[in-house]
């Protein structure tokens, strides 16, 4: 049996691993559905009154929404009241046929947008950033690690030098410095920032794998039958190091999802027209002061569930691929 078949067998016996795999899969499906426009396409619509609390529409009759509360006029009559009322009547008669809900199952944000839909859309953004950045970082780390470990000598020195340069700057500081010079927001910018700075850990591990493997007999045999350097590196050694790559990829997804949240929170992440878990948390401080807890709760719950499931899944995959580590 191959390594992968054995690993799959072990994984099937691991109940925590299977459960977390199911949750990860569910998150991925939600993200894909959201990306394809099947879910939460109208997340930007004003479907409820501002800060509609979580609950069901029937229960909301007792709480008159803020919009219906008459404003304090301190005894001074509004001179424009009549005209404004007329304008409002024509506007609502012509444009607005749909009434705004006073309560939603998961509440609404400042602009009356459904928090549930924002969470779904945020899942898409956060997972996209996490997966793409992890793929980029893993690709770079694997390539550099393979070159350094396989060729050794000055190639190794060069990449080790690059490694020590990148690791002597703390990760988040490096990310912030790159964000400062890029000066532009957006999903692509975040992916590039995280992916181009986050390859060092993977490099270290892959380099060690290649150092170990390049003197093994199967590689020497491949050399003897005339396999090229590239073929030995990627067709012969890489499959034997691929379990490290997979585990690292999964670990970095979690790391980058968390980093994206911090970047977006600080305003250096995704743009204002995109919603992510980080940008939802960024609205939370002013909401909490007013006692509106539902947006931070929803974003935190979604993120905690996704990240926990991903972490447990990574642990399960690692245990399944390398049974010596228990």
């Amino acid at each position, binding site marked *: 049996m191959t390594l992968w078949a054995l690993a799959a067998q072990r994984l099937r016996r691991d109940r925590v691993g299977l459960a977390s795999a199911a949750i990860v899969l569910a998150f991925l499906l939600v993200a894909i559905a959201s990306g394809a426009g099947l879910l939460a396409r109208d997340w930007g619509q004003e479907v409820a009154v501002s800060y509609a609390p979580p609950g069901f529409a029937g229960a909301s009759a007792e709480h008159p929404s803020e919009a219906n509360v008459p404003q304090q006029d301190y005894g001074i009559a509004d001179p424009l009241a009549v005209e404004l009322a007329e304008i409002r009547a024509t506007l609502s008669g012509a444009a607005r046929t749909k009434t705004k809900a006073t309560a939603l199952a998961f509440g609404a944000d400042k602009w009356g947008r459904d928090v549930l839909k924002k969470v779904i859309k945020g899942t898409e953004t956060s997972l996209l950033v996490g997966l793409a950045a992890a793929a980029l970082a893993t690709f770079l780390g694997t390539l550099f690690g393979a070159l350094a470990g396989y060729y050794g000598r000055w190639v190794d020195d060069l990449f080790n030098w690059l490694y020590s340069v990148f690791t002597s700057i703390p990760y988040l500081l490096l990310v*912030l410095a790159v964000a400062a010079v890029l000066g532009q927001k957006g999903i692509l910018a975040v992916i590039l920032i995280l992916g181009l700075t986050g390859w060092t850990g993977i490099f270290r591990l892959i380099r060690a794998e290649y150092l170990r493997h390049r003197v093994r007999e199967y590689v020497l045999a491949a050399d003897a039958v005339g396999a090229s350097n590239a073929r030995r590196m990627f067709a012969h050694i890489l499959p034997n190091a691929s379990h490290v790559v997979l585990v690292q990829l999964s670990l970095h997804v979690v790391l980058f999802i968390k980093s994206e949240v911090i970047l977006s929170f600080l305003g250096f992440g995704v743009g204002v027209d995109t919603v992510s878990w980080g940008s939802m948390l960024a609205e939370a401080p002013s909401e909490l002061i007013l006692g509106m807890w539902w947006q931070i709760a929803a974003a935190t719950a979604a993120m905690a569930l996704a990240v926990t499931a991903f972490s447990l899944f990574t642990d399960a995959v690692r245990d399944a691929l390398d049974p010596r580590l228990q």
Partner: protein
Amino acid sequence: MTYLVRRLWQFVPTLLGVVLLVFFLFNWVGGDPAYLLAGKIANPQLIENIRRSLGVDQPYWVQLWIFIKQVLTADFGASWSTNERVSQIFATRLGPSLTVLVPLLLISTFIALAAAMLVAYYRGSLTDRAIMVGCTVGQSVSILVYILVLQYFLAYQLGWFPVQGWGATLGENLLRYAALPVLVGVVVSLAPDIRLYRSFFLDEIGQDYVRTARAKGLGEGRVLWVHVLRNAAIPVLTNVMTQIPGLLAGAFLIERFFSIPGIGREVILAVERSDFPVIKAVTIYVAVATMVINLAADLLYRALDPRVQLK
């Protein structure tokens, strides 16, 4: 001694690399700073003047030389937005950062060690598994949520701590203003630290000397707290040491939320204002600090464990 000289000599290429990386980022990727500085209403004359005063009208190798001279003399000029000397900024911001970081590191290391020891003692049991799952869940919640929620409940709702602020004397800062930030930092770092230290302890528990200690009749408590802890001290120490430079800049979220005038908050402000001299300086300083601390950690191993050979 020869070891020390050789290690210090190795700083040169790494530092040169950091300088090149920072230079590449800010002078090449970052674009022309004159447009940033001149603001929205800029005329060509103004831009030309700014370019000349910053030296960006010179060829790249001259600019690089200017930057290397700045690094060597530790004089990064003045902040673009406040015109304060960069060295002055760091001298005044270091104190508040350390006021939070030193108690944070001490308390969190101590608690994490005790908790990890406890978990290692009950290894494999339900307690162990429950705490490990709790740590995984705890780690998955963003640091932002910890800060926001703890600040909201403990400071704003219950009023146990000041919501934010900073005083004039060390004692006042330490007892009054740094208390909640330190608490938040401890809560955040506990989950990953417990997991890590538990794995260090479990590595040691399988060793022969532990079996010997048990065989000669020592209690489990003494085995863990004396024999295992001594041997696990080295990886624990590495972890604590390597956290320091990252914390110096990485505590920026805590410093920002609690309005602590430390280095982390300065970094965020600098990034928001595109204040390149400050970011450049902090990157170089922290890189140097990282290298020095790594060297110090290696020397400390030697002092702690005579088996360690420094090559």
